[in-house]
């Protein structure tokens, strides 16, 4: 790995972290679906850590109600495409990496192209339907899916890599109704996004143990972290019948 003197200085404090492998981070490509509360937080810390290529996708524009939690935006961002604002901020945060942006809607058709050469899918989405699209892509293409979600005081993170592990549809139903807009305060997606970023960096560097095949359920009001195992569901409508 040929780091410039500037990069060596930038990453100096993390290069001495035990088992840290900057070359693996530099050669990796991570897809971040959504750059709101979750995805904005994880994308920022992946960029700061030196992940070589980050592709962010979000179709939304910045609205004033985003500003209680979405750290890549401010009052001057209002009305702008999130990916343009986020891209500008991430490039400024670390000019030594590549930030790719798209404002396309994430659906089954577009995802095949948008995530084609990515080695990890990071979930920064805000709805169940899009998460199931991401999960299906993960199952069909055997690309690991770093799930994250928040509501109220609670959030959860999980890393799924079918067919080695369960998938999202093994334990969640797409049809489950949730209130819209989902209640959320800024610290919560920040906390969950940071855990996602930590797990993403560990995955890229091949560091176990991880949340692979598990969920970490966080309750900010009670300040509890419950790790729970997710078994493969033999009747899963998405991943059952696929050989490990």
């Amino acid at each position: 790995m040929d780091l410039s003197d500037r990069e060596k200085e930038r990453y100096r404090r993390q290069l001495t972290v035990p088992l840290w492998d900057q070359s693996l981070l530099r050669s990796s490509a991570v897809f971040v679906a959504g750059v709101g509360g979750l995805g904005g937080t994880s994308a920022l810390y992946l960029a700061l850590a030196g992940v070589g290529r980050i592709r962010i996708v979000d179709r939304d524009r910045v609205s004033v109600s985003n500003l209680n939690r979405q750290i890549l935006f401010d009052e001057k961002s209002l009305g702008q495409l999130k990916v343009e604002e986020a891209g500008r901020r991430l490039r400024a945060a670390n000019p030594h990496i590549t930030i790719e942006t798209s404002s396309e809607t994430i659906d089954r058709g577009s995802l095949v192209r948008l995530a084609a050469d990515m080695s990890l899918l990071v979930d920064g989405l805000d709805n169940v339907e899009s998460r199931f699209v991401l999960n299906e892509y993960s199952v069909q293409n055997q690309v690991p899916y770093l799930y994250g979600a928040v509501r109220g005081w609670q959030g959860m993170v999980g890393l799924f890599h079918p067919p080695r592990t369960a998938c999202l549809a093994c334990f969640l139903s797409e049809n489950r109704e949730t209130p819209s807009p989902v209640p959320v305060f800024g610290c919560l997606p920040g906390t969950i996004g940071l855990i996602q970023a930590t797990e993403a960096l560990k995955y890229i560097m091949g560091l176990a143990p991880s949340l692979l095949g598990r969920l970490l359920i966080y309750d900010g009001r009670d300040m509890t972290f419950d790790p729970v195992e997710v078994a493969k569901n033999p009747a899963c409508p998405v991943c059952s019948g696929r050989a490990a």
Partner: protein
Amino acid sequence: MIIFFKAGSELRHRLNPDVDYYTRRVEADPGKSVKDILKDLGLDPAFVAFVYVEGKVKNLDYVPSEGQTITLQPPVSGG
């Protein structure tokens, strides 16, 4: 048989805890699923996405055993 339902912040007000801040003691018929026990308590299972028991995720068809604690997890879908 006696089981215990536990719920975090979002579901706690529906559960009416009586053991501690999180937990409700429930007398349930052996062989009944979590979904049916919730209905017997007047709790709508639609508020629960899944449960976890002894560190493992289960669906609402799970049949608890005597003395188990079942944590109820509401849907979490924001970002």
